[in-house]
């Protein structure tokens, strides 16, 4: 990221009261510089102007700085407070008034400035399964710790449910049981090796993570991957989205004991996983997307791929009609886990969770990257904000993904070209990369120094959306828990990292 010396004027859509220097504008990004003591005020002004909080991080390049990242009208707005070598950042300063920033900021403070945590309360990033503190009191109220050992084959996360038996009076989501320290593992690795780690941050969204990371490295080192590579990235990413959405729908069917429906959607998912294995050798599309492009063409013929997509779509259309026509299924989803639009905005939620509450946010549309600049996208939204709306959004996206896949295959058929471009092996730079993972917008900050990753920060959709889960039971009872959890469709691995 090159930073111009002379400040430039603020773009019109930013409030005039914002007291910052505009450093760069354009290319989907807007960089604003602010003094450390004006950081909180500027962040508040941005938030009041409708900017959606994305993440907060400590950067080391181009100089040491505290950065808060927002999204405003699709652009990334980076608020940067440069710090001296030993200067401590103004933390915590956001979480107290901005719910969306609470976890991200807390994580940063606990990692780098644990002494500021004081004596108060528990650690977010060092959870203890046996430590419970219910806050609701009253007749027959009890606390139900659910997890980290779940019932069934699920990832580790804990929920502390306080209930009077039926109503969920208070819910507390406790992530970070599976914090593996993967951001730290990236440090010192060459980008093409670091991508192995990135693919395993959230294994069910490997392609989205590899794409966002590769894009960050490419932008940092000023490399543009070839068009054919971008097409293949879109193909692998859309297949990944289909698999993730089918997984959510199969789990919803399982929860209502609609076993034939569950079996049908599981089969469609298995079919998708096999298409991915035939294309890449990996059922999760790993090992293809690398900084600079993709490693190889899909290993399955394009006609064969189209044939498989046809059969998938045919089956999906029938099963969708049956699913949506089964009252025992839809009755449980309609009205469950209703999220008001205003609440969703305050928490900066992304992905199907936000789109289910009528917010049309999708990184593929807001900041089109790679092939999405050419493909065009119809963003699926629903207004009701309940579990049904989130499932409907996914059905809409399944159809849209299949359309994108056909279009990409058509493009791939028409033109040949390079798959990968070399990038400078000893280059330096820093940049954001992003992608729309099946769970929502993913943003990765990467600093590369002399060809090695020096720092990385992952703003995962799962962590951001999970903060909202505590509020997803406005008038729901304990037995709705599984429906609402599945409708979020998140992965603890992505949140915990």
């Amino acid at each position, binding site marked *: 990221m090159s930073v111009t010396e002379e400040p430039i004027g603020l773009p019109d859509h930013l409030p005039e009261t914002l007291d910052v220097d505009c450093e760069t504008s354009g290319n989907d990004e807007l960089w604003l510089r602010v003094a450390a003591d004006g950081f909180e005020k500027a962040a508040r002004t941005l938030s009041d102007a409708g900017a959606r909080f994305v993440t907060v991080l400590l950067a080391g390049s181009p100089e040491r700085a505290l950065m808060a990242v927002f999204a405003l009208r699709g652009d990334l707005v980076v608020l940067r407070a440069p710090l001296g070598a030993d200067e401590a950042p103004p933390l915590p300063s956001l979480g107290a008034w901005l719910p969306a920033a609470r976890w991200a900021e807390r994580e940063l403070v606990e990692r780098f400035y644990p002494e500021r945590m004081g004596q108060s309360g528990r650690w977010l990033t060092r959870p203890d399964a046996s430590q419970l503190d219910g806050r609701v009191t009253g007749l027959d109220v009890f606390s139900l710790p659910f997890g980290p050992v779940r019932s069934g*084959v*699920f990832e580790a996360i804990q929920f502390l449910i306080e209930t009077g038996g039926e109503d969920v009076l208070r819910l507390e989501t406790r992530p970070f049981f599976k914090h593996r320290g993967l951001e730290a593992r990236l440090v010192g690795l060459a980008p093409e090796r670091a991508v*192995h780690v990135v693919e395993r941050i959230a294994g069910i969204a490997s392609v989205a993570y590899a794409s966002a990371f590769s894009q960050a490295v490419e932008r940092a080192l000023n490399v543009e991957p070839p068009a054919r590579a971008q097409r293949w990235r879109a193909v692998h990413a859309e297949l990944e989205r289909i698999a993730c959405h089918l997984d959510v729908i199969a789990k919803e069917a399982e929860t209502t004991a609609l076993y*034939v429906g569950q079996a049908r959607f599981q089969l469609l998912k298995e079919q998708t996983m096999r298409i991915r*294995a035939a294309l890449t050798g990996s059922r999760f599309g790993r*090992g293809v997307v690398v900084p600079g492009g993709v490693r190889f063409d899909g290993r399955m013929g394009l006609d064969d791929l189209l044939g498989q997509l046809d059969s998938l779509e045919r089956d999906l259309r029938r099963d969708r009609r049956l699913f949506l026509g089964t009252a025992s299924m839809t009755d449980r989803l309609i009205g469950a886990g209703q999220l008001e639009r205003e609440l969703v905005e305050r928490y900066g939620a992304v992905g199907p969770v936000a789109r289910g509450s009528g917010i049309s946010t999708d990184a593929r549309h807001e900041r089109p990257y790679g092939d999405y600049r050419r493909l065009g996208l119809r963003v699926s939204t629903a207004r009701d904000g309940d579990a049904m709306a989130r499932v409907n959004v996914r059905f809409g996206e399944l159809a849209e993904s299949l359309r994108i896949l056909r279009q990409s295959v058509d493009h791939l058929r028409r033109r040949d070209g390079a798959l990968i471009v070399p990038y400078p092996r000893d280059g330096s730079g820093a940049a954001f990369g992003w992608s729309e993972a099946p769970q929502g917008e993913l943003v990765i900050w990467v600093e590369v120094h002399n060809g090695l990753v020096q720092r990385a920060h992952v703003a995962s959709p799962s962590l951001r959306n999970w903060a909202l889960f505590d509020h997803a039971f406005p008038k729901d009872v304990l037995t709705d828990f599984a429906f609402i959890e599945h409708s979020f469709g998140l992965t603890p691995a992505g949140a915990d990292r």
Partner: protein
Amino acid sequence: MLEWILRGLAKGRITTRYPHAPERPAPGFVGPLVLLDPDDAPSQLPAVCPTGAITVEDGHVNVDRGRCILCGDCVRAAPDRFAFSERYESAARSRSALVLGAESEAPVRPVLGEQAGALRRSVHVRHIDCGSDGSEEWEIQALWNPYYDIQRLGFFLTAAPRHADILLVTGGVTTAMRAPLERTWEVMPEPKALVAVGTDACSGGLAAGGDEVAGGVDQVLPVDVYIPGSPPAPVTILDGLLQAVGLVNPQGAVA
């Protein structure tokens, strides 16, 4: 509802006959790593591997499948030496048996089938995630889909560890999951078996060596069956489960 049932029936039988009939991956599948040529290796060869799965001693190569994350860096660097297998099966009954070309030690316990023969046809399985990337859970769940239908072999999922015969562990055991893992294992009745699913569970994988991950389940509890892979395919996991109860032996023959 009738329409659902008809829809199910219309598809016909799709379930695999594994292990009574073999399952082979499609060409190009990234299966377990195999060593084509173990001799005369240059001493810098181990550097191609991001997890230290490749070691060279006096020019002789050892490959530890328990560390291999199937990234393919070695296959691209030395295609005459390394390749991906055309078989799914790679589970082993001891950690050292995962090292290609090394002597394998005896398993920690006899298989469940030897301890209680009656168990063989009704085995209850419990899963615990101790820090996986989430993909292992998908592949375990897939075993209960109509294609693999593991219930036909007598495996059932149970929610309570007190009812479980087999504990499937994914992930390399993070600090926060260590106590829940020990407690889950402790309350399971004897005889019981512990199966490590995935390279992370076998050795910690890419997360090993950091402050957060123990570096494999066997750093915490004794493991009966190791199933390497990042993630292992459903058939690979199925083979490991069948080995844990003694329905197949490590050579893949149906007992």
